[in-house]
């Protein structure tokens, strides 16, 4: 354990793909600057650490914890609480931790559905006895405990309080380094802020041409050859840009894909999906058949709440209903 004035940083991955850890590595040579300024006390994705190492730390020992991944299992929750206790500042790092991200879309189904699907129904599964993993089981060698698979996915902020959030799936490298620089310099904004992103929406930085065309029909990106210079939405392709926070540098749009919304809602917007719905339906053509337009948005939840479902009002309503039952 380092005994100096260097910053103490922890990086953890809960229910995530690992992309956020890669995003940290992607800061490239700046890793050397990070190393100079800070000691990384815990980073299971990159180095070998034991949970016991963390448990052994005194409370608030870590200066900043970058927590990526959402909370899907009891293990995720346990570590989230542990790191919270050991950290002065907890950052929900990346879309999973911030708003549930793609794993959050699993909330369209319940635990039973998911386990059945994964362990019994997928074509690649061979499981003649239909065994489904259980939290506790007895084997000849003794009792086995596995982390519990929760009913739904939650962003880390719903399990423990977090000071800041960094959006993005994953956060782009330049923004990651920007956040780290701010941490190193001790220039963090007031608690609650979203770091590493702009305030307004992606359209502000989008270079595609908008000529005022209204939407006659909604199409999915693979159904048309989109004009590379024109606004996606004006071509009928649902682009999350209007309801997505700026700051990513438009990597998707630059390679010909509409914004999927991974940077979450802009400042002041509570519910990204509802706001996106509000915006795209406002620009429909006066001649178009509304019902047809509605039906053309195949999978509305997956389209409008691709990254933000578990942090949405829609999700809250579902949870409230489940609680009542």
């Amino acid at each position, binding site marked *: 354990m380092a005994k100096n004035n260097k910053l103490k940083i922890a990086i953890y991955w809960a229910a995530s793909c690992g992309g956020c850890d890669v995003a940290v590595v992607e800061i490239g040579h700046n890793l050397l600057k990070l190393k100079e300024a800070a000691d990384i006390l815990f980073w299971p994705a990159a180095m070998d650490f034991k949970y016991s190492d963390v448990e052994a730390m005194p409370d608030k020992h870590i200066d900043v914890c970058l927590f990526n991944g959402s909370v899907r299992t009891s293990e995720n929750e346990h570590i989230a609480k542990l790191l919270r206790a050991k950290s002065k500042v907890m950052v929900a790092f990346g879309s999973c931790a911030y708003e549930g991200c793609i794993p959050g879309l699993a909330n*369209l189904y319940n635990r039973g559905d998911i386990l059945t699907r994964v362990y019994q129904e997928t074509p690649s599964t061979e499981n003649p006895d239909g065994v489904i993993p259980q939290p506790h089981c007895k084997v000849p060698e003794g009792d086995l405990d596995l982390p519990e698979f929760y009913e739904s996915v939650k962003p880390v902020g719903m399990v423990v309080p977090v000071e800041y959030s960094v959006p993005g799936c994953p956060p782009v490298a330049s923004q990651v380094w920007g956040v780290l620089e701010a941490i190193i310099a001790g220039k963090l904004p007031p608690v609650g802020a979203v770091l590493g992103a702009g305030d307004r929406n992606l359209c502000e930085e989008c270079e595609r041409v908008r000529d005022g065309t209204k939407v006659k029909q909604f199409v999915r990106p693979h159904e048309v050859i989109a004009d590379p210079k024109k606004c996606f939405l004006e071509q009928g392709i649902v682009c999350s840009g209007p309801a997505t926070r700026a700051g990513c540098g438009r990597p998707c749009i630059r390679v010909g894909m509409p914004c999927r919304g991974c940077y979450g809602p802009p400042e002041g917007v509570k519910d990204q999906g509802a*706001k996106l719905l509000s915006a795209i339906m406002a620009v429909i053509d006066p001649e178009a058949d509304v019902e047809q337009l509605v039906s053309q*948005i195949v999978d509305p939840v997956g389209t409008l709440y691709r990254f933000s479902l578990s942090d949405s*009002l829609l999700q809250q309503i579902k949870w409230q209903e489940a609680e009542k039952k």
Partner: protein
Amino acid sequence: MQHTDNTPHSFKDEVMAEPGGELLQRCYSCGTCVSMCLVNQTCPDYNPRRTMRMVMLDMREETFRNPTIWHCSACDLCHPHCPQGIHISDLMRAIKNVALRAGYESPLPSAKVDEHKCSGCDICEKACPYGALSLAAKTIDGKERKISQVDRSLCMACGICAAACPLSAITVEDYSNEKVAAQIQAGHWLKKAKSGDPKVLVFNCSWNLRAEADRDAMSELPANVRVVNVPCSGRIDPTFVLTALQAGVARVLVAGCQPGECHYKQGTRIAQGRMHTLNHMFEQMGMDAQRVQFVQIGTEDRGRLPATILDLVAELKSSTVAVA
């Protein structure tokens, strides 16, 4: 002698020279437009027939001094009924144009853009049924950006832009997000009535009730129903609906106008797109899709809205009794 030049010689000629003003003199004062007009119902000073008379009699200043000449929202309910085929809203637009040239301004409240929040994403410009919004370059905080700007003479304050703006950068006086929220919560209605009656929130467009009796009925609904009036169903951001449901409302009913009768042309179609997509999303989430309902009330649907609300209340009551 005929006029040999094109200079308008009178107020009447000036209006008739405007596009849409040509048919002015066809009006034989039957009053059909007036009695069809929903603005006239709430604001009797707005009388298109009388305005046309005043123009025909060259009563220029008096016409302009009537602040209601700006109230026509071009819903065009009157036009298909006019036996003389006069496009009254075009004519009102012609009068407004002459008034604008004479230096008069619309007294209506108009949408306001928060320039710091606005990103210039252009959604509002496409959403506005009146072409009242457009982008213009402006220096904000030392940086030149394209910002949405409101043409006051065109804005009808329907609030469609306010709902459409993904940054909540546009506000319409009296119908800001905060004021709508306050209307929903006023009197701690949601917390108070724990009496077991499920709560129904009605977002009602201010223009879909023609009959006095229906307007009265709307103020005599049971205590577990709250009606929030908005200028247009297109003002309803789905966020309002979800917020209300999350706060404990059992059902949200959004009432707009019948397509083709929308007071602000497009609002009811926009609301339909939003609310029906919400229905689909609830279905996808495995929830009762009917927790938000959308009805479109036509000018001939006497009694339909109050009856729909009461039916909804009765249905909810019987279903909760059954569960209990």
